[in-house]
């Protein structure tokens, strides 16, 4: 045993106790401020903190938590707060407060100094993005993917460079007509070939003279008749050969003519097809779209939603869901990971059983805030230990009938955490309310009142959000924002004339399936106005595309027409002549041959009769003798 060492130790302990008693208040104050700043993201200042060992009580005179978005305003400010900690819990390294009264709570109070924290380099987020990160990204994506509506007829026309559009759209009509022109040239060549090679004139003259010489009356003898028939048949054969050749060639030429004549009609279909392609490339707006409200309010909603989901992420961070077995986490050196062995009805690491809240929210220099009153139960970092969810019930009203109510249930008792929030604002004044910058929206609302009803529900990876808003007696200020965009003008004019705006926002997500819809009466009104104003400009644009395509078609068809226009009448006349000649002479030849055969038959019968008479005479002589 070393007594000197023992004394030195006693001195050390005494010194520690003295220093602690002198500085403990400051240390606790500093610790609470740091913890608060980590949660709020802005300065948290506690004044006049006093901790007493004797009864483990803490009190402070004032607490200010700055708004990270508006550092010159306080997100929350309280007056004197006093509470006691449970000694039994504190001996177990837990902080349990049975009752805390937050009196004189105010929000939005101005600050004398900036509440912005000195910027620290952003910490890279470790691990995979959680469900809420994905939800925020999906919400942002929904709005980012919306088309930027811009509708200025003059700019539209100017921008609609038909030559480049036609080049981009790769219209096919010219190529198709060029292909047809090749066909026409080939046909004309065939026609020329026909004209060059089909020369039956000499043969036809011979045939004509041959069958003109076929005179049945001049036949004297049977052999003469037979020779004449032979000659007629030979002439008929020659005639048929010429006729068949002509028939084949004539059909080919008629088919060519018919095909070439059908091309202009086909070109109409080609032009329609090309028009669709050009219109697609030109992205002519569909004026019947119903996402105008989403475009108008989507950005503002996403900004607010991102903020709300950020707060909710903080809540989930400090109030995690129950896990059966702790998971090993990567930790900074020398820090380690604290393992919590919780059991029901023990002390959680942090618990405030009941908080009574009273104060004023939304006060500014011109008007009083809403007198807020309510209770919060079982704020804890380990809800499954106490077996009860955290519940919030706050409500308030002003003399001018503005009202607010906020209810929340954060149930992290079981492994399947579920949270619900319900916020109602009634009769909210919209006088001189600034609107987030948007090319479509007014800079501020001059006057108006609105009711809001917001419901948010989270259960594991399922999410449901609904916001209903009715704004009435509205007046807008568009003066501060200038635009030359007609669409913006239309939207502004419609909104400017609206006395009542309804907005119904619904967002729902289940795992990776996410839907975000914004419905409003703005949709119908803007759509109608836009159609009225835009239809003429759109029709002009469409007509210009059609006109240009028709011009291309006409030019190409004219080139096509020119190719065979000169040749077509000649070949048709030539075919007609030959056709007529063949037709006429065929009947003549057939008539001649027929007459010849009849004459032969007649002669044959005459000879037969003569022979019969002669035989009868001879037979009569024989019988008489």
């Amino acid at each position: 045993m070393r007594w000197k060492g023992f004394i030195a130790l006693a001195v050390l302990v005494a010194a520690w106790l003295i220093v602690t008693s002198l500085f403990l208040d400051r240390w606790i104050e500093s610790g609470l401020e740091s913890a608060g700043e980590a949660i709020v993201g802005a300065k948290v200042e506690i004044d006049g903190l006093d901790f007493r060992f004797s009864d483990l009580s803490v009190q402070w005179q004032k607490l200010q938590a700055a708004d990270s978005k508006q550092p010159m305003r306080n997100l929350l400010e309280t007056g004197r707060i006093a509470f006691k900690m449970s000694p039994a819990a504190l001996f177990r390294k837990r902080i349990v407060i049975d009752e805390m009264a937050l009196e004189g709570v105010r929000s939005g109070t101005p600050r004398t100094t900036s509440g912005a924290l000195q910027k620290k380099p952003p910490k890279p987020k470790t691990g995979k993005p959680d469900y809420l990160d994905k939800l925020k990204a999906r919400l942002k994506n929904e709005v980012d993917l919306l088309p930027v509506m811009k509708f200025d007829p003059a700019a539209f026309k100017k921008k609609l460079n038909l030559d480049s559009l036609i080049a981009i759209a790769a219209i096919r009509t010219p190529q198709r007509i060029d292909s047809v022109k090749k066909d026409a040239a080939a046909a004309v060549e065939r026609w020329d070939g026909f004209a060059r090679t089909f020369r039956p004139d000499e043969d036809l003259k011979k045939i004509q003279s041959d069958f003109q010489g076929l005179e049945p009356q001049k036949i004297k003898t049977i052999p003469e008749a037979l020779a004449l028939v032979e000659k007629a048949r030979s002439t008929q054969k020659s005639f048929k050969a010429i006729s068949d050749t002509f028939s084949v060639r004539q059909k080919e030429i008629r088919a060519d003519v018919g095909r070439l004549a059908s091309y202009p009609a086909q070109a109409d279909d080609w032009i329609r097809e090309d028009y669709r392609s050009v219109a697609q490339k030109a992205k002519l707006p569909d004026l019947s779209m119903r996402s105008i409200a989403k475009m108008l309010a989507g950005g503002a909603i996403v900004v607010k939603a991102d903020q709300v989901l950020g707060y909710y992420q903080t809540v989930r961070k400090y109030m995690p869901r129950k896990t059966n077995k702790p998971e090993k986490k990567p930790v900074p050196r020398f820090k380690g990971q604290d393992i919590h062995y919780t059991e029901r009805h023990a002390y959680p690491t942090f618990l405030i059983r009941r908080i009574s809240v009273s104060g004023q929210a939304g006060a500014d220099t011109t008007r009083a805030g809403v007198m807020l009153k309510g209770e919060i139960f079982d704020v804890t970092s380990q809800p499954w230990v106490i077996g009860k969810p955290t519940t919030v019930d706050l409500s308030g009203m002003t003399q001018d009938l503005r009202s607010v109510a906020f209810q929340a249930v954060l149930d992290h008792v079981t492994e399947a955490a579920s949270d619900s929030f319900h916020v109602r604002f009634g009769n909210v004044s919209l006088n001189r309310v600034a609107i987030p910058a948007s090319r479509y929206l007014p800079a501020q609302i001059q006057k108006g009142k609105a009711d809001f009803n917001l419901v948010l529900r989270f259960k594991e990876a399922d999410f449901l959000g609904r916001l209903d808003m009715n704004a009435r007696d509205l007046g807008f200020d568009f003066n501060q924002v200038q635009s030359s965009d007609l669409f913006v003008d239309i939207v502004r004019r419609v909104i400017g004339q609206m006395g009542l705006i309804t907005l119904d926002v619904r967002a729902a997500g289940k795992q990776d399936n996410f839907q975000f819809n914004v419905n409003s009466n703005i949709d119908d009104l803007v759509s109608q106005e836009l159609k009225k104003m835009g239809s003429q400009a759109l029709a002009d644009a469409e007509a210009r595309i059609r006109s240009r395509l028709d011009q291309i078609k006409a030019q190409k068809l004219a080139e096509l027409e020119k190719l065979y226009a000169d040749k077509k009448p000649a070949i048709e006349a030539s075919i007609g002549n030959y056709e007529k000649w063949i037709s006429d002479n065929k009947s003549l030849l057939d008539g001649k041959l027929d007459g010849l055969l009849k004459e032969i038959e007649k002669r044959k019968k005459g000879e037969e009769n003569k022979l019969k008479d002669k035989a009868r005479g001879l037979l009569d002589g024989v019988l008489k003798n």
Partner: protein
Amino acid sequence: MIFLKLLSKFIGVLRSGAKPNEIAWGFALGTVLGFTPFRGAHTVVVVFLLCILRVNVSAAMFSWLVFSLFAFLLDPLFHSLGFFVLTGLPALVPFWTSLYNAPVAPLTRFNNTVLMGSLLVSLVLLVPNFLFFKWFVESYRESWNAKIKKWKVVKALNASSAVQWYLKIREMGG
């Protein structure tokens, strides 16, 4: 400079008449302080032991400083070991649970993975460390001291202006 002062004291202790057992226990307890995080009830216990027992405090301080550097390197190992002991042995979980929910015990931070891992390692090594340091002190005194003094490096160091300057300053300070 603190390290040089401690090193000087450490060499002085090795050459002094202090008993090897006292020096070795000082080393061994200093190792516990070096390996484990400062915040924890074990620190109070070890410092208390250092104060009331006849152990060499200089050796403990030197050992504390040196093994703190090792602790930085071994931290991931301590974390893994502590996590396994605290969560991977189902038979121990009821014990940890009752300890966690008992008064005072949670203040020891026994449920911290790095503290548990490093404390286990240092407690397991406490006696071997004592034996090793005892052998080291005895060996130093018996044979190494004379040999080390003859090392060219040591001679050069002793002759160097920095060491001379340090020794002068130390003498001035009494």
